[in-house]
């Protein structure tokens, strides 16, 4: 593909630029999820830790949730913003605009994979064995990247057309954190509430993710179907809508 090298440069820029002026640089990618998880762990460990099913340790349980929702939230916002940010380029040089959200999603995916290092460490420290299924997190990451890219493509058009979308999306993402079992186990909820939480696709991604790295979590085949279908639908619908509305949107840049 002709634009592969451009995507590579964009991903590289995305990964390094954020920490360009900091001392430990990309080390923050390792440290950020640890710190966020540590804060949440201090706050919630007394509340929920004792109630995790199957003797899962709370620290890695929490950190998996943090890594996954960070990838989703930051990925969606950054890829949705990427086209507006690069408007100056897109209105002067022809490049397929889709490469910007795509590169952002890939950067998010790489950050997610880098996050596996501290996750493995936290597992080791809290005395939980890593499962042999661990490589399957690659699948979860790829599906999540497709989901993020699809949503990002649609939002990037909306962000240019309506300024309000930004605020709505921010609120929505905040709610999403709470309806995803990041720091509480699903089993503490009543059956009705559980159904609602499980309607959230991120719950399936997270359950599979936890199942993949730990020996004592269980996962349902419905989660697998839900994960694959939502990611494929997202990227298919997202790129279609983008192609349809882009010609009318480019004039607004």
């Amino acid at each position: 593909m002709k634009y592969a090298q451009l995507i590579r440069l964009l991903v590289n820029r995305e990964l390094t630029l954020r920490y360009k002026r900091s001392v430990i640089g990309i080390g923050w990618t390792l440290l950020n999820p640890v710190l966020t998880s540590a804060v949440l762990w201090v706050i919630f460990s007394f509340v929920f830790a004792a109630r995790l099913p199957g003797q899962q340790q709370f620290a890695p349980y929490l950190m998996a949730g943090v890594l996954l929702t960070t990838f989703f939230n930051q990925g969606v916002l950054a890829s949705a913003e990427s086209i507006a940010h690069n408007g100056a380029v897109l209105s002067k040089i022809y490049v397929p605009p889709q490469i910007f959200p795509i590169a952002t999603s890939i950067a998010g995916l790489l950050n997610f994979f880098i996050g596996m290092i501290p996750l493995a460490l936290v597992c080791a420290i809290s005395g939980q064995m890593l499962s042999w299924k661990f490589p399957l997190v690659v699948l979860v990451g790829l599906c999540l990247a497709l989901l993020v890219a699809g949503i990002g493509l649609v939002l990037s058009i909306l962000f240019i057309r309506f300024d309000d979308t930004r605020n709505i999306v921010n609120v929505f993402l905040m709610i999403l954190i709470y309806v995803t079992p990041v720091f509480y186990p699903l089993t503490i909820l009543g059956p009705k509430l559980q159904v609602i939480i499980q309607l959230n696709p991120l719950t399936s991604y997270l359950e599979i993710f936890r199942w993949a790295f730990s020996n004592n979590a269980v996962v349902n085949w419905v989660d697998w179907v839900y994960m694959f279908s939502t990611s494929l639908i997202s990227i298919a619908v997202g790129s279609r809508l983008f192609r349809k509305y882009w010609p009318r949107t480019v004039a607004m840049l």
Partner: protein
Amino acid sequence: MSVIEVKNINVTYRVLMNKSSSIKELIRDAIKRKARVIDYIALQDVSFTVDKGEVVAILGRNGAGKSTLLKVLAGVLPPTRGTSKVGGKIAPMIELGAGFHPEMTGAENVLFYSALMGREVKGVKERTPAIGEWAGVTDHMDFPLRTFSSGMVARLAFATATDQHSDVLLVDEVLSVGDSDFQAKSKARIQEIINNGAAVVLVSHDMRAVLELATRAIWLENGHVKMIGNPEEVVAAYEAN
């Protein structure tokens, strides 16, 4: 053989009357059925061709549609009607340094800008020192772009854009980059690219540059082609207007 072939293109922008891009107002307008969207015609029925080695200058006042035309030629803006065919490699010098990032070094920016223009990264890497030297910023290539002066940035962008052979050069007021030495140097380089057989479309308010470089001129007024012909006549008519 024409490198650029533009046939009956129209470009209309849909403009909200009082540019209010909020969902609330959109819903309100939809309910009240207030037609607040108007079509702004930026280009109407524009046709021309540019052959290899030809330099076509576009003249016109601000808002005449010159930039819109360049965007259509660059392939960035699809025309509402008509067709625009541009063959070969395009070097869009519409705004120098679009895509430059202040936190990346000079060398990284050269690479990135070249990749945006669809060039092979490997070849550019080898050329980077030469590009820096031509722009006169060799000592700065490894520093972030924010430490460059604006003249240095423009020179680096010009040097990058013109470093490789292109079939089509789209130039928007970039001949006035840098000091007089560099201006002479950049004019010579453009001339060299023209001599190598590129087709050039040039937007400029600098009539001297137009007379010097152009082989044909197009005068745009309110999105129409008002006059098309040899540069001396068109410039004379434009200036008399």
